[in-house]
Structure formats: C-alpha cells, structure tokens
C-alpha cells in the first residue's frame, strides 16, 4: 500500500513534468525564425507561392501556436509523431532505428562506468589519504573537466588512427549492407565510442561512492560494529556496501540525462548513426518534427531513469518499503 502510493505519486509528478517539457519544447521550436517550409523545400526552390501556401496550410503553419500545439500533442498521443523532413520517414521510425543503435552504446558505457566507478570509489574510500586515493581523485577531477568530444577525438586518434586497432567510425564496415553486418562487426565498432562515453561517466560515480563510503565509515553504527570485533573488510562488506549501493545506483540512474548529452557528442565524433547524431542533424537542418520528437523522447528517457531509481528505492529501502509507522 505504502509502496504503491509512493510509486504512484512519483509517476504522477513525472507525467505532469513531462507534459510541461513538451510544451516548453514546442514553444521553443515554434518561436524559431528558422522556417520549416524553407528547410523542407530548400532556399532556391522554384515552387510557386500558391504551392508554398498550400503546404503551409496543410501543415497548419498559419494556425495560432496554441492550436498547432494541441494538434501536435493530440497526434503525438495517438502515436503519430509526424514525418521527419531530413530523413523523409516517420519520426517514430527514425527514432526507433537510431535509438536501437544508441541503446547498445549507452548500456555498455553505463554498466562499464557504473561498476568500475563504484569499485574505484570504494577502493579509494578504504585507502583514504593514501597515494592510490590521491591518484584516483585527481584522475576523476581531470576527467570531469574534459569535454566528451575532445576525449573522443584523442581516443580516436590514438587507437584508431595511430595504432589502427579499431575502425575510425560508423556502426558497421562501410559499404556493407545492413543485413550482412555480423554481431562481431557491430561490437567492434561499438568499443571506442562506448569507451569514450563510459570513461566520462566514471568520475561522478567514483567520487560519489568514495564520499558516501567515507561518510558511512565514520558513522556511529560502524563504531559499534568495530567494537564488536569486525575488521575493516567486514565493515566495508557487511555495512558499507549495504548502505552505499542503493544511493550509488540512484546516482547512476540520475546520470541518464548526461548520458544522453554525451551520446550526441560521442556519436558526432565517431560518425555513429545513433539518436544523438539524429538530434544534431535535426537541429542543423531545421527538421522540426524530428527535433520535437527527439526532445520529448529524451525527456521520457531521463524520466525513465529517475522513475527506475525511485522504484528501486521503494522496493529495496526498508525505511520506505515498510513505512515509518511502527517507528
């Protein structure tokens, strides 16, 4: 009961925010001086004025923005996300295709940065003040300040160009038909971009896990456990992990937002045909339907991350699960 109420409340709040995000996105795009019609037919089109007006009328460009928004939102809810101007395909299809490429990339980067970062953070906290701790800390601070695309460029120029271990870009060998691409080739092309993306996500989780574990290790219940004979590894495994795992996972889920931003940059560097490069393409070519679609999709993605973190908390933290009623 308690749990349902908690998750229901979170979900409700997120849905209202999601609605607000789509209004905001629509408003921003609608205010743009970039004319979708020009973007569609090109600047030196020979189309007659009447034909242009007809298209504008057909798209509803002459309607007031509020009416346009309602029409767009209504269609959006019905599953019609419009047609991408740049790709000449339905927005939903484009997002689906592109996201299927990105999801592998993000998942690998997310899991890689999460596990490695968590372990590095725990290690640094246990060795607090040592040389290792300082190295890990400095490394994280440097990574935090490094722009994603620059790290991508360095990785590319070292591993792909100089050493020639990996392909320079794309998601599959050039010129090969999509159905002929093997899983091995897909993975081969995934390694460098996901490495770039993962390395950048690491510092946040490492510094968080380190900080949190240091906090936990100085709490009263650790003192008591120590007084009962537990040694440092028992303290870390029995109590430390138990108390930092959930918050750390939450932080990692909350990083969905940065992951999406990172993917736009990483895909741009590695010419990887994912949703991030679709966003860039849509923005640059004035493809309003696709831009809107991706904006709302990205918000859903971020909310999904937050929601999962909230649900995990509800399921796993006894203080929320069993309520404070008997306390």
């Amino acid at each position, binding site marked *: 009961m308690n749990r349902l109420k908690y998750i229901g409340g979170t979900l409700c709040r997120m849905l209202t*925010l*999601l609605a*607000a*995000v789509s209004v*905001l*996105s629509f408003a*921003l*795009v609608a*205010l*743009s*001086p*970039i004319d979708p019609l020009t973007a569609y037919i090109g600047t030196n089109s020979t189309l007659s004025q009447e034909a242009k007006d007809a298209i504008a009328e057909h798209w509803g460009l002459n309607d007031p923005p509020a009416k346009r928004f309602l029409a767009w939102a209504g269609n959006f809810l019905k599953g019609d996300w419009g047609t991408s101007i740049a790709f000449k395909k339905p927005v939903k299809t484009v997002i689906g295709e592109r996201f299927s490429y990105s999801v592998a990339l993000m998942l690998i980067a997310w899991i890689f940065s999460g596990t490695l970062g968590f372990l590095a953070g725990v290690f640094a906290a246990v060795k*607090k*003040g040592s040389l290792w701790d300082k190295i890990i800390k400095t490394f994280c*601070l*440097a990574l*935090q*300040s*490094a*722009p*994603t*695309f*620059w790290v991508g*460029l*360095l990785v*590319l*120029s070292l591993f792909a*160009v*100089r050493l020639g271990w990996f392909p*320079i870009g794309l998601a599959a060998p050039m010129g090969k038909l999509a159905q002929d691409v093997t899983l091995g080739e897909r993975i081969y092309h995934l390694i460098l971009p996901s490495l770039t993306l993962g390395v950048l996500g690491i510092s946040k989780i490492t510094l968080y896990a380190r900080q949190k574990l240091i906090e936990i290790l100085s709490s009263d219940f650790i003192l008591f456990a120590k007084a009962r004979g537990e040694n440092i590894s028992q303290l870390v495994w029995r109590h430390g992990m138990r108390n930092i795992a959930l918050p750390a996972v939450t932080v990692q889920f909350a990083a969905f*937002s*940065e992951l*999406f*931003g990172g993917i*736009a*940059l990483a895909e*741009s*560097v590695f010419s990887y045909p994912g949703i991030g490069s679709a*966003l*860039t393409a849509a*923005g*640059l070519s*004035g493809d309003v339907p696709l*831009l809107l679609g*991706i*904006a709302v999709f*990205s*918000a859903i*993605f*971020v*909310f999904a991350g937050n929601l999962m973190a909230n649900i995990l908390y509800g399921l796993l933290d006894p203080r929320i699960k069993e309520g404070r009623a008997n306390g």
Partner: protein
Amino acid sequence: MDRKTARFNTRTRVMVYIVLAFVYLAGVLLWGLLMDPEAYAVDYRVKFLPPGAGHLFGTDFMGRDMLFRCVKGLSTSIVIGVIASAVSSVIALAAGVAAAVVGGKLDSFVNWCVDLCMGMPHLVLLVLISFMLGRGMKGVMFGVALTHWPELTRIVRAEVLQIRAQPYVQAAYRLGKTRMQVAREHILPHVLPVYLIGVILLFPHAIMHEASITFLGFGLSAEEPAIGVILSESMKHIATGKWWLALFPGILLLAAIMLFDVIGENLKRLLNPGSGHE
C-alpha cells in the same frame, strides 16, 4: 612551528592556485581580445605543419597558426562563459532567495521550474534554445546563460532555508524586523560565500557547454576561431594523422576548466574547515 606551516601551506596553496588561474585566464582573454587577426591568417604555403619552433601548436589545413587561433578561440569562450555565468547566477540568486524567503506557492513554482529544466538532457535544451534563436553566437550565449541556474538555485535555496531556521534569525523576525531587513542583514552575508563558490564552479560548466554546442555546429560560425569550431574541424583531419589539431586546443580548454574547478573546490575547503580534520 608545525602548526604555522600547516596553516601557511593550505592558504598559500589556494592563493597560488587562484593567482595561477587568474593569470592564465586573464592572459588568454587579453591576448585573444587584443590579437591582430593577421596572427592566424591563412597561408597555404605552410599548411599542416606539425608542432615546431615556428608554430608551437602547428598549423591547420589553411596554414593558420594553431596557437594563435586557439588563444583567440579560448578568449571568446571565456567571454561567453563569464557573461553566461553572470546571467545564470543572478537568476539563481533571485529565484533561490525568493523561493526560500517567500515560500508557499512561489517556492513550489521555483522547484517545479528547476525540475522542468533538469527534466531534459542539458544538451537537448541547449540545442532547442539555439534553434529558437536561429543558431549562431546569440543562440549559444542565450542557451548557456539560461540553462545553468537550476543547480545553483537549489543550493541557494537550501542555504537560505537553513539559515532562516537558526534561532537568531527567528529572533530577528520577532523583534519586528521586516523580511527585507532580515534578508539583507542576516541571510545575504551567509549565503554570499556559498553563492560565490557556486558561481565559480558554474563557470567551467558554461565554457564546456559552449564548446560542446559549438562543436556540434549550433554555435559560432565556422569562420570564427572558437575552440568548438577548431575541434570540429580537426575531426576531418584526424583520420590522416593530424593529431595536433585536436590535442592542443583541448589541453588549453581543459586547463581553463580545471583551474576554475580547483579554485572553487579549494575555496570551499577554506570556508568549511570542518571537513579538514584529516
């Protein structure tokens, strides 16, 4: 003796960082602003020179000197970063203080706006704003300036709430001081340090986002020397092994960002000696 050196070291270290960062940033800024465009003029006779005595950072595909271009680009980034963090921090201060002092509906509204802005990936929001303003310099400037306030707003709001709960502030209210008086005499002086550190830490984010959005092609036009543009160009030549086109501009950018981070973190430590019992 021991005590004195410990104190001296920390203070000195922070001062050294601050001076270093300031010299670096001010130097780059002035050098860039006063630079004669001839310094990075096109010269096809010397294209793609690797780093060497004549051109410390090498030259690009049009034979332009990379060192001068990078400095010019970074100075542009710093200008944008300063303006953007100034605007964002003013928004954050106003919104954070108002939310905490007025409370009630306004507080919920500010919180809601913060959640709204954080509900979309930052980069997507930047792309949308830049799109709204028809891309270009204006788009980047507004985008970066209008999207960096949420986190700082939260920090300011939390700080104000904490101070307001203190007994002496409560007493001031009961003594009949107006809200404005209490805000000016008691709350602002305590929030200010936290706020200033927040502003300093905001700066690197602003520069980083400026470079990112420019790199993607939404920002400054390709003719202008901006770090994002330079790195974006370098992408085309990396496959042929022109590594210096990417390495040096990035290092300059990284140094600027890190120095700001270091200043912010060290100031934080100086102001909260409680965390330093190690």
